[in-house]
């Protein structure tokens, strides 16, 4: 099984490649490629093929292209990011290029041998099974979401890489709310993207943990929704890894596609919660039953909790006429467009103040990109204004001082509700300041 991104529109190719580079560089680069067209029809295909070299799990990226200006620069940048300290890109990604349309090699049955013929200097890749492919036909206007999906699939097993996967999954669900929900291609792309992310998180990352312990390993350990990562890693190391990956991907895709079709696509919160349940079910069915407690889910599990407490949140916030005031909350690693859309749709809020800590600098910048996209693509009633305010979190005393200083100066009547979430050093001061100033608050 391999994943394939296919784009044939010149502008979509440019936006897609620019966004991929920007996201992979951790926003240290704002990539800009030429607007000029090539001589013929443009063509770009990017395949992600999971493989094993000795015991090490790697991903091979094969880029096939024709008639695209500056595509070589894009490929060179991808290669460079493997070694850049600020980039999120995983070191276990190998980038190769095909400077033409290689239809016959691109067929799944032939792709494995293409790998072997390509590697002149690199080690021989074994254990590549390409029975099927997951193809994303990237259309104009949805390229931002697909770029984030590709960047997150290429990122490593560290905190920011996992956060990027969560944001990609959550944003894909909101894509359904923005797009025409009867568009079958969008539904398929979203279902495939979510299945690919789930397989990446639950099969790929634990396999990385097999060789990458220490500090990075502990990040995987804390982020994955397993009760016993060690037994999962042991299980995966004994199994045919690629076959487990493929099996899980296929089953999850079918389940997610069915969940989207069952009229939930216009309710992102319910859909996220439902898909989190489906992913949990598929994990227990196909991967390692003992390892998954079923209580948490990494990609969308947070929204299961939000949905569970929605009535309580509504009770606290909706009665206070939130539509005509400000809602204050915290930007965490899991704050994606989905969270903002949930606040807009469920609480009718239009004006949000998001407090963020330096730990989520990149998530804050990504969120603004996607919120702007949302505002440009929905009706005026659904648009939202977000103010981003940085506050510290490692020193709880200082955090209290900052939050107190900010909220004390604001007009109390304009703040209708506070949703205190995120680290306790931030959530608790926010709650205490809210209580002191008589503002309605809920701890999430």
């Amino acid at each position, binding site marked *: 099984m391999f994943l394939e991104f296919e784009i044939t529109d010149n502008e979509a190719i440019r936006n897609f490649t620019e966004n991929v580079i920007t996201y992979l560089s951790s926003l240290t680069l704002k990539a800009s490629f030429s607007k000029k067209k090539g001589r013929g029809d443009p063509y770009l295909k990017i395949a992600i093929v999971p493989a094993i070299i000795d015991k090490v799990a790697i991903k091979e990226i094969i880029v096939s292209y024709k008639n695209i200006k500056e595509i070589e620069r894009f490929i060179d940048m991808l290669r460079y990011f493997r070694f850049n300290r600020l980039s999120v890109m995983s070191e276990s990604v190998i980038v190769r290029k095909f400077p033409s349309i290689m239809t016959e090699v691109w067929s799944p049955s032939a792709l494995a041998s293409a790998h072997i013929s390509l590697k002149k200097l690199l080690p021989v890749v074994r254990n590549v099974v390409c029975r099927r492919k997951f193809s994303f036909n990237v259309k104009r206007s949805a390229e931002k979401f697909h770029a984030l999906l590709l960047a997150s699939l290429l990122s490593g097993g560290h*905190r920011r890489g996992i956060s990027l996967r969560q944001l990609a999954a959550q944003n894909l669900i909101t894509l359904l709310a923005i797009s025409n929900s009867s568009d079958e291609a969008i539904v398929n792309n979203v279902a495939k993207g979510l299945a690919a992310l789930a397989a990446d998180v639950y099969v790929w990352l634990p396999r990385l943990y097999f060789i990458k312990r220490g500090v990075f390993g502990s990040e995987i350990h804390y982020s994955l929704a397993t009760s016993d990562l060690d037994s999962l890693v042991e299980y995966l190391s004994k199994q045919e890894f690629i076959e487990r990956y493929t099996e899980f991907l296929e089953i999850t895709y079918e389940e997610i596609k069915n969940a989207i079709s069952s009229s939930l696509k216009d309710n992102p919160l319910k859909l996220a919660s439902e898909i989190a349940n489906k992913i949990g079910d598929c994990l227990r069915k196909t991967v390692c039953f003992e390892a998954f407690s079923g209580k948490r889910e990494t990609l969308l599990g947070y929204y299961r909790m939000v949905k569970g407490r929605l009535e309580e949140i509504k009770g606290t916030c909706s009665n206070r006429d939130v539509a005509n005031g400000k809602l204050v909350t915290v930007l965490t690693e899991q704050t994606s467009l989905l969270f903002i859309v949930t606040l807009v749709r469920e609480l009718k809020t239009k004006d949000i103040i998001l407090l963020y800590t330096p730990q989520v600098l990149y998530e804050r910048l990504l969120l603004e990109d996607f919120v702007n996209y949302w505002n440009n693509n929905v009706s005026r009633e659904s648009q939202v204004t977000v103010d981003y305010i940085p506050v510290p979190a490692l*020193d709880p005393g200082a955090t209290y001082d900052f939050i107190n200083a900010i909220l*004390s100066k604001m007009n109390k009547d304009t703040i209708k509700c506070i949703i205190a979430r995120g680290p306790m050093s931030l959530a608790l001061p926010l709650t205490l300041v809210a209580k002191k100033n008589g503002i309605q608050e809920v*701890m999430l």
Partner: protein
Amino acid sequence: MKFELRIDRIVPSPTIFPYDMTYSYSDSIREYDGLALVTIEPIVKDVKDEEKTDMWKTLFFIEHLSGDETSKKIVDLALGNPEIVFLSDEKNNASKRMNMLMHFNVLSKRLSEEFARYAEKAFLSKYKRLWNYNYELHNLAFHTLLLAESYRKKIAYDVLKLREKIGTNAPIEVRETVKDIAEILAYAINENISKNTTRNFNKPDKVKSPTVGKILEDKLKEMGHGKFLILVFPQMLRREAIKRLKMQINTLRILIKFIISKTCSPISVRVIGYDISKEQAKHIAWGIKCLNIDSEVLISDNLENLLSKISEKIKEYDKVIIIILQDYNKNVISKMMDYVVSKTALIIVTSEITYSVSESYTKERLVKAYSPWFNEDSEKILEKLDRSKILIYSI
């Protein structure tokens, strides 16, 4: 047209820590020797140039070269974004060894002189006080300098917005921190935020921030005498994190010993264990047995059951102290706040890791990420810690 370059301020040793690794006590990704905030002004020479009097602000990192720092240069190349001016040092022949472009010119010589002046102790004291209070936002400012220009602007405007939102009644450290980072980022995006603010920063400041020990002592005095209940909510750890469990026990010992010494009242401790953190709670309760106080656990798999146990226990005591070690289930904390609202209560939230500023600028790194709770004697550590490091709040 000629230009004049004015060095407005030099920030000593800006150290950049990676965000995603903060909780791993990570080392910095880069520590420069300085950050220069400069203004470039055209010198009007003839009639044609009279209208072109715009000045612009910019900044760059300063790196004082020594021969064995080749690896740093590789990091600089990988980071890409920040502009660096290398200072020449005639005593060593580093320039010959470094096989890359360097700016050994008039600017470098001028910066060398300024740099020596700024490294004086009196100037550093103000930075030390600010950074001891909170370095995190300064790290945000320095990290922002590595971002692409359009993203750098967004963060700069966030900080300028924060500056507007801070009231004049805010603590002086808050106002000065925000003012300082706003100024650094204003230089980064060539924005004028206020006139002549930089020069004032050079004056050493004599305001001394109270320590955690002093504040905790005052709060305990306010609570008076009576039966004290200490409820402990430890952050859930995974099985292998023995080192962090030891640290939780150490933190608790330090705080409880301090509370005992200042209250002279009977004290009971209950460590709260919920779901899979039950075993951890037992270990912590066992770990503080050496203090010879009544210490037990309150544990349950069921949230309602646990809350009712906590509620019952709180009713038995006059005074309640809640200690949250880093983080805990927000549902439990939220409900528990309702139970203590009619009591004399104190909430303490500790943080496992913070940034510390070194006493000696020349011998070691100025800023490092560390945990204050390892191998420290109680009185010493609480008397040394800046008040910002722990949240102490009376209900």
